[in-house]
């Protein structure tokens, strides 16, 4: 049968005649050949989609011959062919001749013929031991070929071991009439076309059922990086809360702004070369504001007029002049607060400010699954008169609620430029414990007063990393799979949109899937 349509008609006609097709394996086409079951399945599916027929599967095991088995069935077993080749009589035939005539089967055939005591060796020649033989293997195989099996299971196993026969699973079908059974097949449209709309044909057309289990065609198109998607979410939280974005677009920074302006003493361990990337070129700068530098020097050494006793050491300008790659974006915050103080002086009045940034910082760290030499820091700063710790905590409550974290609390900690310093913890329902998520505090007066801010101005600030929440959100265990060139671009395409406040199966901190 040449077309699927013809096959469908044949099935319908057979059903019309017999009411049921018990097993389609017995179905032959017009020229008496068995119908290919796979082709038939296509026809049956098509008919079933129109409810014209129904069918069930019939699975059966069928033995078939391997290529070698086919050969044996046709030409005889290797041993029989060896026997047949050797003439009767004492003369026999040389092994070399047998080899030359039969090729590679000669060796196996000889062995088997010896074992069956059909032939033996006389001198250098092979001679017959019996006059006639029965080639049982050949007849067994011919039977399997004809019947698709054999009554002797042990024989089948043996033939399979000899790689002469093997079994396969064949599926055929039992077909019955469906609710819409008819002899005529109504033509079905697969899609709604322009022509149909123009001609109005869609009104009469019968449409093929859509397979809703199939997968849609994936769209082509571009994709944003997961880290940037999470960054966007944080940016929006800041914008919702009235924050101005800081210009963090300078990776190179002086020790002065990165450390000294933050009241970080010059012998502080963070200033060690093994934590910080110092620069070879440009190696130093002395261009920071000189009057500010003098105030900072005095504050470090003796506290100056800030009410502090200072760190009691000799401050060195050369240490402040060392260029580095910023280790935190707080270097920019200190500069912004200096600018704010200058503006306050120029305008004669202080205006409150809220700043934020999300940008890259650098640490001279050994790289592992959770540490890279570069990562993104999220930082927020609020400057106003007489801010309190209650403001800091209250603000953090709102900020982190927007990230989907309802339960946060604060732990005392140490940081050279904030006092009080508070680590922010969020309760993890999955781990059943408090997990550190960020750091916060009130900038020290020894940092703010040299910058020139009025003494009643207090500044609260907090920071957290961008990578960790992203890794938790997208279930990434190695930071190198997220940032850097060893990312899988195919994965970038798979990461879903980020809504920090929504639980998406894997929550930042909160209920995990298993709960």
């Amino acid at each position, binding site marked *: 049968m040449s077309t699927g349509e013809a096959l469908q008609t044949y099935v319908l006609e057979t059903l019309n005649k017999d009411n049921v097709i018990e097993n389609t394996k017995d179905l032959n086409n017009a020229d008496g050949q068995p119908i290919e079951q796979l082709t038939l399945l296509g026809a049956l599916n098509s008919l079933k989609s129109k409810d014209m027929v129904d069918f069930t599967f019939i699975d059966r095991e069928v033995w078939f011959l391997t290529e070698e088995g086919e050969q044996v069935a046709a030409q005889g077993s290797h041993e029989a062919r060896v026997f047949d080749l050797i003439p009767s009589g004492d003369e026999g035939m040389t092994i070399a001749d047998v080899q030359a005539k039969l090729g590679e089967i000669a060796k196996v055939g000889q062995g088997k013929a010896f074992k069956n005591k059909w032939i033996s060796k006389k001198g250098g020649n092979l001679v017959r031991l019996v006059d006639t033989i029965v080639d049982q293997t050949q007849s067994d195989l011919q039977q399997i070929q004809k019947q698709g099996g054999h009554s002797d299971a042990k024989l089948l196993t043996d033939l399979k071991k000899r790689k002469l026969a093997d079994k396969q699973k064949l599926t055929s079908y039992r077909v019955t009439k469906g609710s819409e059974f008819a002899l005529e097949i109504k033509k079905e449209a697969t899609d709604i076309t322009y022509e149909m709309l123009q001609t109005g044909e869609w009104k009469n057309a019968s449409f093929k059922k859509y397979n809703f289990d199939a997968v849609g065609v994936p769209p082509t198109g571009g*994709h*944003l990086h997961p880290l940037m998607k999470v960054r966007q979410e944080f940016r929006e939280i800041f914008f919702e809360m009235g924050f101005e974005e800081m210009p963090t677009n*300078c990776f190179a920074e002086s020790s002065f702004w990165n450390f000294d302006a933050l009241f970080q003493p010059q012998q502080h361990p963070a200033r060690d070369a093994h934590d910080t990337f110092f620069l070879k*070129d*440009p190696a130093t700068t002395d261009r920071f504001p000189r009057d500010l530098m003098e105030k900072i020097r005095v504050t470090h050494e003796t506290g100056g007029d800030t009410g502090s006793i200072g760190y009691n050491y000799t401050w060195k300008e050369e240490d402040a002049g060392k260029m580095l790659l910023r280790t935190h974006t707080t270097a920019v915050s200190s500069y912004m607060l200096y600018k704010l103080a200058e503006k306050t002086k120029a305008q004669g009045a202080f205006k409150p400010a809220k700043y934020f940034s999300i940008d890259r910082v650098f640490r001279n760290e050994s*790289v592992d699954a959770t540490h890279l030499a570069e990562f993104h820091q999220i930082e927020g700063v609020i400057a106003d008169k007489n*801010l309190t710790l209650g403001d800091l905590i209250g603000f953090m409550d709102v900020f982190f609620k927007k990230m989907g974290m309802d339960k946060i609390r604060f732990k005392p900690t140490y940081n*050279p430029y904030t006092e009080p310093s508070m680590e922010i913890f969020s309760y993890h329902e999955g781990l059943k414990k408090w997990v550190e998520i960020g750091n916060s505090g009130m900038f020290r007066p020894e940092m703010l007063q040299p910058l020139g801010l009025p003494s009643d101005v207090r500044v609260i600030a907090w920071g957290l990393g961008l990578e960790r929440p992203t890794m938790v959100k997208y279930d990434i265990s190695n930071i190198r799979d997220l940032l850097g060139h060893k990312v899988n671009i195919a994965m970038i395409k798979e990461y879903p949109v980020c809504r920090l406040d929504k639980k998406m199966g894997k929550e930042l901190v909160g209920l995990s899937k298993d709960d």
Partner: protein
Amino acid sequence: MPTVNIDKQRLFEALERDYTTEEFNELCFRFGIELEEDSSEDTSANAPERPVLKIDVPANRYDLLCEEGMAAALRVFEGKAKPPVYRVVPPADGKLQQLIVKPETAQIRPFVVGAILRGVNFNEARYNSFIDLQDKLHNNICRKRTLASMGTHDLDTIQGPFTYEALAPELIKFTPLNQTKEMDGRELMEFYDADRNLGKFLHIIRDSPVYPVIYDANRTVCSLPPIINSDHSKIQLTTKNVFIEITATDEHKVNTVLNTLVAMFSRYCDEPFTIEPVEVVYPDGTVKVTPNLDPRDASAKVDYINSCTGLELQPNDICALLNKMCLDASVDTKDTNQINVKVPVTRWDILHACDIMEDVAISYGYDNLPRQMPGVNTVASALPLNKMSDHARRELALAGFTEVAPLILCSHDENFKFLNREDDNKTAIKLANPKTVEYQVVRTSLLPGVLKTVSWNKKLPLPIKVFEVSDIGLKDESRERRARNERHVCVTYSAKTSGFEIVHGILDRLMTMFSTSKVSKDSNELGYWIEAADLPTFFPGRSANIYLRYIDAANEQKVENIGAFGVLHPSVLASFELPYPTTALEFNLEPFV
């Protein structure tokens, strides 16, 4: 953050209470320390016999670096005790031990202090803690012995007055601690060169013409600071009288270290919390008696504390809260708005009234502070450059390209040689001390990172279309930091064919989206044009420069070569191990802001 190992049973005994893990965690949380590990939860075979608590301590609290200090601070915090009062008590005959400083020491390690603990009662735990605290102090405040280093001696094996000298290494001969062979300064340097513990301290004095040394009255070497003590005067479990000497390059730190050490261990003296002073005589005749254990007078205003914490505490309440933090506080007799605090020598972290304010807040409990939303009204705004970048990123993603995020740091070769570019030494910011060759320069082009990302992903189906919008770094002598960033756009297309016209199309598309028209080079109109170029990064005849005529921030008309695009040169592809023809576009986004 230093970690301290504390014997759980002894600590709980000191606190007069058995805490559950949860309760103890909670105490740590409120006090500002962190329980890292409780070995009683360790069920493995190598768990220590007596349960040990591993506790992280804030980097400025040297008074918590040993079991004695931790127990004392927590006892006071939990209201079980009052803070101890340390007393400097001279010997009965009034004659102090002397430490005489020789002028030569000025060139290597100019300061020294001393103190004596009389009638100390060591046992194994106390002795180990004494050694361990010295180790912790050496590693933290002493900055690996560079700022200060201490030696402790059995006073009954040596005899004062002591001298602190600086001599040529060959002239110093003694048997170092736990050794049997006498050696001189040079031999000692060789002997300890490969030593895992001491090797790292040798550099502090190795190349100096003179080494610091402390002798007793009989010319017995006590120690060779900052390396090692002599075996002769070593302390043991049976030692009763301990002579402590600390040499330093920083006079403030050396006193902090001495005070911490004697404050923690004077509790084991026959007369607890008493310390016998030592007289240090400098060459100019200055005499300093150490240690000075007088508390420092500090103060904080009541209204300042209340204003910062958002509380309305009475002066007496504040004093009670501070007492729990080991701070002896009282209301000023003349000014009830002032709290006077006697800061013990162990609390050197108190620099300013804000530190006192913090202790009030901790003592009150951060959890108990009233919460409020600050009423700070401000207007939100994005950095214009970032806003522009986000527009460019969205347009590129809409155009079918995928965003990548490589690192900013790269190797010198990746930034120059691999791109067939020369280093003119005027452009790139270079690192002085990177840990690996992967990080040698701040990239001056987005190409190395993007190409490395494509190379890492070369097994993906073609075409591979990626972009990055991010900063490069440049030296810039006109800036305070002598450097600046520049925001770049980079796009690459890799496939079986070069895709040159596709990348060209992306450029045109972005320009349309930036409302920038294509103009003729010779006109005076604002806009962009491209010109064929011969750039070594690209295949000959397959690259172009991009020019922009625009009005800059100073309101002046400018023409600038903002970037280029082209089919990458096969040698560039080979350097980045890219098998496919690749076209790349990179330009400076900043003129469009």
